[in-house]
């Protein structure tokens, strides 16, 4: 879990609204994010749209620590945002996440 201090913590969803090894879309203030719950039960967040074409990653498949884009299967490590090879070459922006009272909060600058 990312512990960077963020300027604002935004409540996103209930922690158990996301299955283990799964992803959920979260829209806030005209921006779309993807929130992940890893197989080892940690939470992460990235920008919600693929960097190849503007496609919602939350419709994709999470396997271990990889989110696969539902359009052309571009892959990212959602913990770091790192693009894992063709057709994606631009990394995803990541955001800090914290759990509080069974809820997931996103740290937005």
């Amino acid at each position: 879990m990312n512990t960077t201090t963020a300027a604002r913590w935004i409540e996103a969803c209930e922690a158990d609204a996301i299955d283990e090894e799964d992803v959920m879309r979260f829209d806030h203030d005209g921006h779309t994010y993807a929130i992940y719950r890893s197989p080892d039960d940690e939470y992460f967040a990235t920008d919600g749209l693929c960097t190849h074409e503007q496609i919602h990653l939350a419709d994709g498949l999470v396997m271990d620590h990889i989110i696969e884009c539902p359009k052309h299967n571009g892959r990212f490590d959602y913990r770091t945002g790192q693009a894992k090879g063709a057709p994606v070459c631009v990394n995803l922006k990541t955001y800090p996440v914290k759990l509080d009272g069974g809820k997931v909060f996103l740290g937005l600058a």
Partner: protein
Amino acid sequence: MTGAAQPESMIVIGAGEAGARAAMALRESGFAGRVTILGDEAHRPYERPPLSKAALTDAAEPQAAFILTPDRLDEHGITHLGGRAVTAIDRAAHEVHLADGERLRYDRLLIATGARARKLALPGATPENVLYLRTFEEARALRSRLAPGAHIAIIGGGFIGLELAAAARARDADVTLIELAPRLLARAVPAAIAAIIAARHEAAGVRLRLGTGIERIEAEGERHAILLSTGERIVCDGIIAGIGAVAETGLAERAGLAIDNGIAVDGRLATNDPDIFAAGDCCSFPHPLYGDRRLRLEAWRNAQDHGNAAAKSMLGGSDAYQAVPWFWSDQYDLTLQIAGLADEGRETVTRDLGDGARLDFHLAGDGRLVAASAVGPNGRIARDVRLAEMLIGKRVTPDRASLVDVSVKLKGLLAG
């Protein structure tokens, strides 16, 4: 193994999807010698799928979607020579000949020359009155014809023809689509799914003429007239043909390499010359998932996966290529995705994904899952098709009830 034990010069013919990926993969595998991509197109390698989609429909003039930036080429020490057609391969000398007379030496060679649009052989069809789509320039030329109110005739009800029809409707052009077979997408898509796609096109106002041949094309003043086998005469402002592609095998043939519906390669993507490999649309290869059935695919992911695999084999790897075939197409708000080979199926089991989205699982006679085809909004189908693809790769014989029941997660079947 012949040739240099330690290869120093790797040459890739064809600056397309497979060639670009192979060049990068050579570096990713640690190859430190020379890597040169020779392309007859002037451009750096670019993606073709957008040519029949966003490049035609975006409001802004299209840019080619380049696969590699100049920075990435530099960073990886890959030389791309554009506008340089290869005219011959001298296998004995290990050299390729370029159109301008230059010769370049290779230790290992990859042929990734792709395919070209099949041309119409019809009375009255000329390069002036019939347009085709394979390159960025052709997409630009086509785009200028897709004006509101213009009547466009599309010949061929395959993927390219259908994506063109959707793009033309998006630009408010009128469309008549003519297909000789009694239904759309007869080659690769099950009838039930093709019917959904046909209905979507009709709802968008495309006039479908299925099971319809063409007698000839004539001039009609500034316009064109197409005479159909049914006696109908279609007067239009532009004619575009999407009637399939022909593997670009000329170089390989003249070099005496084996050809079998494309450049024939083995499971490592090696030709009958151990220093020459082929990848992508130009080659046919045996697929271990389907009893080594020889396939030639015209699919973007296959071109990438082939590029990766060919690079490994060029460096001496011995793995057989076995990626599950996968293809997608976008038309209007619908995406079609197919994993595996639907024609290997003897029985179909359908999962209703909601919102009109449908996923068909194709099972072989022994119950093994051999393909999955789906149509619907991309976000509805993609995840399950991807999981189906993994199940196909694992050669599972799934329980039919679990495939149909949407409350059973396909991911759970993977673990089993």
